[in-house]
């Protein structure tokens, strides 16, 4: 069973959307909607109507990261202060809550931001090696690419659909 990947480049989002819609409606046997990817120079959240809602779970990580950052921060700081129970400072308590609040707040934000960045990289699948997948430099300029992975036989159908919607260029690649 040999799979083929095909990348069709379109002039604008409408043409690409029409092509995707037709591919979806064609209901080709070995083609799942998950195998359809759109590559674009700007974001198109409206593609979710066509491809279905896909998850972006970064915010769960953010919550964990923020809570972790805050609690670790407070523990570190309060323990460090607790180490010096014989050294009074300014008549204040050894573990004073106002400074600890300020620092816990900062560490909460630190944890949240770092974990969000990490989550973004993880969830988006970055960094990735570009050689292993089809790409065209025009995508970063002004053309939208639709990439479909399917069986060799279905690919001919997909190619026809692409040409019907005036694809500017089509690239093919045989996998294993």
């Amino acid at each position, binding site marked *: 069973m040999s799979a083929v990947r095909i990348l069709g480049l379109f002039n604008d989002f409408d043409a690409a959307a029409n092509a995707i819609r037709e591919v979806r409606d064609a209901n080709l046997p070995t083609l799942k909607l998950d195998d359809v*990817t*759109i*590559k*674009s*120079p*700007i*974001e*198109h*959240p409206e*593609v979710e109507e066509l*491809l279905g809602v*896909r998850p*972006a779970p*970064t*915010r769960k990580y*953010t919550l964990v990261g923020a809570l972790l950052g805050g609690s670790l921060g407070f523990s*570190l*700081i309060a323990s*460090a*202060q607790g*180490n*010096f129970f014989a050294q009074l*400072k*300014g008549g*204040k308590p050894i573990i*004073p809550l106002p*400074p*600890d609040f*300020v*620092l816990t*707040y*900062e*560490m909460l*934000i*630190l944890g*949240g*931001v*770092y974990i*969000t*960045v990490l*989550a*973004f*990289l993880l*969830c*988006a*699948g*970055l*960094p*990735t*090696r*570009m050689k292993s*997948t089809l*790409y065209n*430099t025009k*995508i*970063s*300029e*002004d053309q939208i*690419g639709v*990439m479909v992975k399917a069986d060799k036989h279905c690919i001919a159908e997909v190619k026809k659909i692409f040409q019907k919607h005036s694809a500017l260029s089509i690239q093919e690649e045989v996998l294993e």
Partner: protein
Amino acid sequence: MNDFNRDKEKDIRDDIAWAQINKDVLQSIDKPRSAFWQLFAFAGFLFAIGVGCEIYQYRVGLGVGNFDNPHMWGLYIASFIFWIGMSHSGTLLSAILHIIHADWRKPIYRFAEAMTTFSLMTAGLFVMVHLGRLWQVYYALPYPNERWTWPNFQSPLLWDAMAIFTYLTSSMLFLYVGAIPDFAICRDNATGWRKNFYTVLALGWMGTDRQWRNFRVSYMTIACFLIPLAVSVHSIVASDFAMSQQPGWHITSFPPYFVAGALYSGCAAIITLFIVLRHTFRFEEYMTFPILDKIARLTFAIAMVWTYLNLIEFASVWYGHDMYSKEVLIQKATGPYSPFWWTMIFCGSVVPFALLSKWVRANLTAMMIISLLLNLGMWLERWMIVAPTFSHGYYPWTLDHDQWPSFVQWGIVLGSFGWFGLLFMLFCKLVPSVSMYEVKEMVYHRTLARKHAREA
């Protein structure tokens, strides 16, 4: 320079070809012309002055800065706060305007965020320059060590350290993550060592819907974190003063006052760099007059907030019973610092009224001069917070009205501007200073809106 013929309503033309956007911005990171190298050398020269003064001070001792008892702090702390303040512009533009979907920020936020990062790095220099034993600055870092000691977390200076570290790293990450799609564009159009450089930076970004989806959510999340962070960072810097009990410092409104001042000086700096970049890289299509108009009006609004907080502080001191604070205020207005104090009032509260005039807002020379004056006022404001309280504290015997900073202090302050210039110029040549993908989004949405309006 006065383009009255341009369409004033639109922040950007909606018929710019995306390929054109790529081309226009990418030519800004081409091989630099000789003017760039000359300016770079000048910034390097300023920085060298600063380095020279610091070496002298490091070897001989802080006394060469004309410090004494009670003038323990001087221009270093004032400039430190000035640079931290300037860093708030990036966050304001990037994060706050992003969350409220103000599209006009899109062509200008990249260099504003870069300004944030480099301002923070410059402020970090001053932390070290100001210390008496700079070679032991690592004592202030919280990590398990063989001395079995931790820093003193009660100290506002340490809160500064933690907050600024958080802010610097978060800003850098925000800037970098937001630039990944642009690095992909650079990678696709570069050759030679630049191609390798951008390939690494772009992390293999291909613009797939999965990447864009996660990007959108993450970027918004980080922006939501950065806003409370920016407010808290400068509040913490303000609490260096507010948490002490010296007259003129122990003021509850200092945290919001500092944050307002920070946003103010950040906006003024954005105007300055806007005009510089627009001219240097010929970004007239992107850094348009309507956008400049909006920033100018924002600056005016913040100027009024700053003026209000100033007036509140003066009023509450004047009508209060704290005679020490009142004396410090009278000192500021009539004592040895009064020329600087009144210049600060003029630059900070009177000059922004020029921004009310439409003619001024459309005149690049006037805007350049005004923005520089506003920042001068803000720098003076920081100095006027630090110095008068030292000269006129609680204790009558320690009043010292004629201590002025020496050439060493001025040299290092000058050097910091050189350092900032060096970093910013390097940035302009390595990273696209206009966010290409966001400008494309702007054009796309305007085209869509026009199409829907036509169909309706």
